[in-house]
């Protein structure tokens, strides 16, 4: 049994420590999933040229010289845009080929992960890509390639971050 004397010693200690405990616990609150996020969408036109090059506006993307992207040797930046997202709600982005990219983001299985649903629809509503669902680390891009565009294809880079 805890004597009154012992209790009286423990109580101040508890009161002194509890703010520290709450400070330690605070980061877990900070890890709570945000209600909003944003998707960075990079749209590139890939084609095959006699003297291909990578548009410097794309930035440093060594992977474009590697498979499977190296199937094309010329990459031009078409658009780069940040799309605000509400968690659990769909957002759309008009692609240069007339199609519409739809993104829906939800929290992933652990902090810092997102589950991203992407689909691409024709202007008439017909699905060109019904669904691709990925789990992605915040800020890490995945790619959707292969849609016909001009003399080549579109390569979309999609990264979701807080």
């Amino acid at each position: 049994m805890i004597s009154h004397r012992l209790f009286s010693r423990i109580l101040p200690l508890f009161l002194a420590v509890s703010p520290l405990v709450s400070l330690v616990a605070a980061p877990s609150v900070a890890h709570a999933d945000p209600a909003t996020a944003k998707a960075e969408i990079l749209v590139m036109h890939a084609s095959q040229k006699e003297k291909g090059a990578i548009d410097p506006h794309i930035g440093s993307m060594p992977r474009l010289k590697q498979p499977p992207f190296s199937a094309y040797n010329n990459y031009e930046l078409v658009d780069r845009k940040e799309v605000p997202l509400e968690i659990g709600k769909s957002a759309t982005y008009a692609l240069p080929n007339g199609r519409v990219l739809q993104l829906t983001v939800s929290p992933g299985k652990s902090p810092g992960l997102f589950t991203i649903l992407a689909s691409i629809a024709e202007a008439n509503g017909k699905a060109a890509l019904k669904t691709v669902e990925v789990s992605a680390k915040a800020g890490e891009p995945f790619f959707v390639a292969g849609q016909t565009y001009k003399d080549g294809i579109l390569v979309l880079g999609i990264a979701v971050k807080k």
Partner: protein
Amino acid sequence: MARPAKLTEERMLALMAYADGEGDVASRAEILASLQHDPEGQAFVASLLDLSPFAAEAAAVEVPDLSGVTAAILAATAPATAAEKAPVVSAPAAIDFAAARRRKSGWGGILAGGLALAAAVALYAQVKSGAPVAINSANSAVLVASAAPSIAPLASAAPAEPSAIAANGPPAVVEVNRVDSDTPVDVFLIPAESTPGTSVVVWLGDDNALGGP
């Protein structure tokens, strides 16, 4: 696009095992000796040991083109024996990677898709399905799954041994759970951008596209 000389799939798998610290002393010594006169192999091992995109780009190895890619197909759901007995399986319109992973979780989590790497980069297949994976050895991209809505076989080639290298490879920082499309779709694993691990490329078999990989 010029097609440089490249490592065979068998050679790459051996080098990946070496880079991963696998094999007994004798076999490792044998591979080490063979590397003495194999600059491509050296560069390949170097790229495996440092997967950062920048380091990969710096590797002085040419990347073969992918114009000849024909197939590397994952039997996402069929066990090996079934694949052998029924080599042609009608592909579903959707590939549910997450379900396949769940079904095969008893296998130990991560099993290899397949590996065939560009010399400058290591592409780790991390399909955790446990299903056999066939890779076209003439190509350098890692195609972990391929599906067409109606006619293309999902598993048409003899099953291959899962790669222990892939099982020990870097974690997936982007992981495909599901793909559903009316058009043929290929899924590739590529090195992630910011951290060691893999990301994905979903390649649509769009009409009139210039072939794709």
